[in-house]
């Protein structure tokens, strides 16, 4: 897959696949093209850019499909969560109506059945006090609660693939820990296939089985996370892992003595 803007390539020869139920991490620094890759999969590239090559879901080509056909995929078969849930949630709509939104759009569930599904989703993302949460507006919730609501919405229609773009970057470290633990449990329970986009290697290391390392619009290395994070082969991945170790390592007694 590639992405062009005004005839110039922004992304070139990006190739990867995730098996059903797999967990892929897309890693890169600013300008690597990791978020553009995710947007291309969803058919949500910014104005003026277009994707070339091929993007398939369960063997079906998505590229070149019309907006109508894409809308049947987006949110229903491929769902997404973003870095800042406050911008993804409608500030004028209660959380209850927002979570029910995708159900109305993509499923025949209505009334009491829809309500039951909403409560089920809140339980799935471990949001207690469901009555109060459902009546709240997004700005009345904490950052962690908002990201849980965004996850509940994403999972509402039992998608096959969940694309998470820096879903914990805006959160405090203890909240990040909670959301990552939750994400892990949710994947186990629902079997959803995960594409996790992040600049943060140690965070990706917690959730992904396979990694794609990107830099300046190109893939520089792919491989199982366990191998890539301990013995990267490309120069760039090696420098990224070294830098990540340097900035996240906590001191130990032995080291200083």
């Amino acid at each position: 897959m590639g992405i062009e803007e005004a005839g110039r390539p922004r992304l070139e020869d990006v190739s990867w696949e995730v098996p059903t139920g797999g967990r892929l991490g897309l890693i890169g620094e600013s300008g690597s093209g990791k978020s553009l890759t995710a947007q291309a999969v969803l058919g949500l590239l910014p104005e003026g850019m277009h994707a070339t090559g091929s993007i398939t879901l369960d063997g079906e080509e998505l590229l070149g499909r019309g907006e109508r056909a894409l809308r049947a995929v987006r949110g229903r078969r491929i769902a997404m969560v973003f870095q800042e849930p406050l911008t993804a949630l409608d500030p004028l709509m209660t959380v209850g109506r927002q979570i029910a939104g995708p159900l109305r759009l993509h499923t025949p569930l209505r009334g009491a059945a829809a309500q039951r599904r909403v409560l089920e989703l809140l339980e799935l993302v471990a949001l207690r006090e469901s009555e109060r949460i459902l009546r709240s507006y997004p700005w009345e919730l904490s950052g962690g609660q908002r990201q849980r609501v965004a996850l509940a919405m994403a999972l509402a229609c039992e998608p096959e693939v969940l694309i998470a773009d820096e879903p914990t970057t805006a959160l405090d470290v203890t909240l990040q820990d909670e959301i990552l633990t939750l994400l892990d449990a949710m994947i186990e329970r629902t079997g959803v296939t995960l594409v996790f986009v992040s600049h943060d290697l140690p965070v990706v290391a917690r959730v992904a089985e396979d990694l794609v390392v990107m830099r300046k619009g190109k893939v520089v290395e792919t491989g199982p996370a366990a191998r890539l994070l301990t013995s990267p082969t490309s120069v760039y991945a090696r420098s990224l892992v070294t830098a990540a170790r340097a900035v996240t390592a906590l001191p130990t007694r032995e080291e200083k003595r």
Partner: protein
Amino acid sequence: MTATPAPTAGTTSQPPLLALREVHRTYGHGARANTVLHGIDLEVHAGRSLGIVGESGAGKSTILSLLMALSSPSAGQVEFRGAPLRRARASRMREFRRSVQLVFQDPRSSLDPRMSVDQILREPLESLVVPGDHRARVAELLEAVGLTPDMAARYPGEFSGGQRQRIAIARTLAPSPQVLVADEPASALDVSVRAQIIELLAQLKDELGMTLVMVSHDIAIVGRLCEETVILHDGRIVEQGPTLDVLTAPKDPYTQKLLAAVPQLPG
């Protein structure tokens, strides 16, 4: 990076460079009053860099503004070299501003895009009335942060994020301060650049004898750069002491939770 053994709080004859004594800070009045700091006591000693670690809402930004004398405590006292800091005394405030400088989080917003690097670095020299040859000082400052003197004629927009943070750090070094107060100095940067800025700060400690006060959510960066650590939670200090003790043998449950939450690479 092993620091020279510095005198600890009890044994030193020198007063601390900076100190907060029983500091409380309340915003608003009456029924709407919101107390964000509850009796904070801390000292910054020369050669013992201090990390103040906390999450959102812990009171980090309020402590930062008190330490920089940008606001005053509701109760308690801020001390500079052993004496209370009052904003009214102009000569002492100038001495304070020369000695204690602030590094901001995001160099994109802290550098004026219409000023050349030369103008940016000269500004504190002029406003703080620093004596000497300013042209030579600008060249010296650029070299101290790993840039070259010929970059002085260029504008912030021509530099990368990491280079801009170096320029911002060079500006804080202009009046030869003793203390750099850093507000998440690396968190707006990509990981490889972040590692370089951490390296630069470590080098300023070693080569210029700079004392850092780092206000950060990032416990790893504090572990790398600070000899002393304070853990802040809901406006209170829950644990404080030598960094190695706090990070390897945390006693407070919140500190333990915070450390356990830091994601680590395998292997």
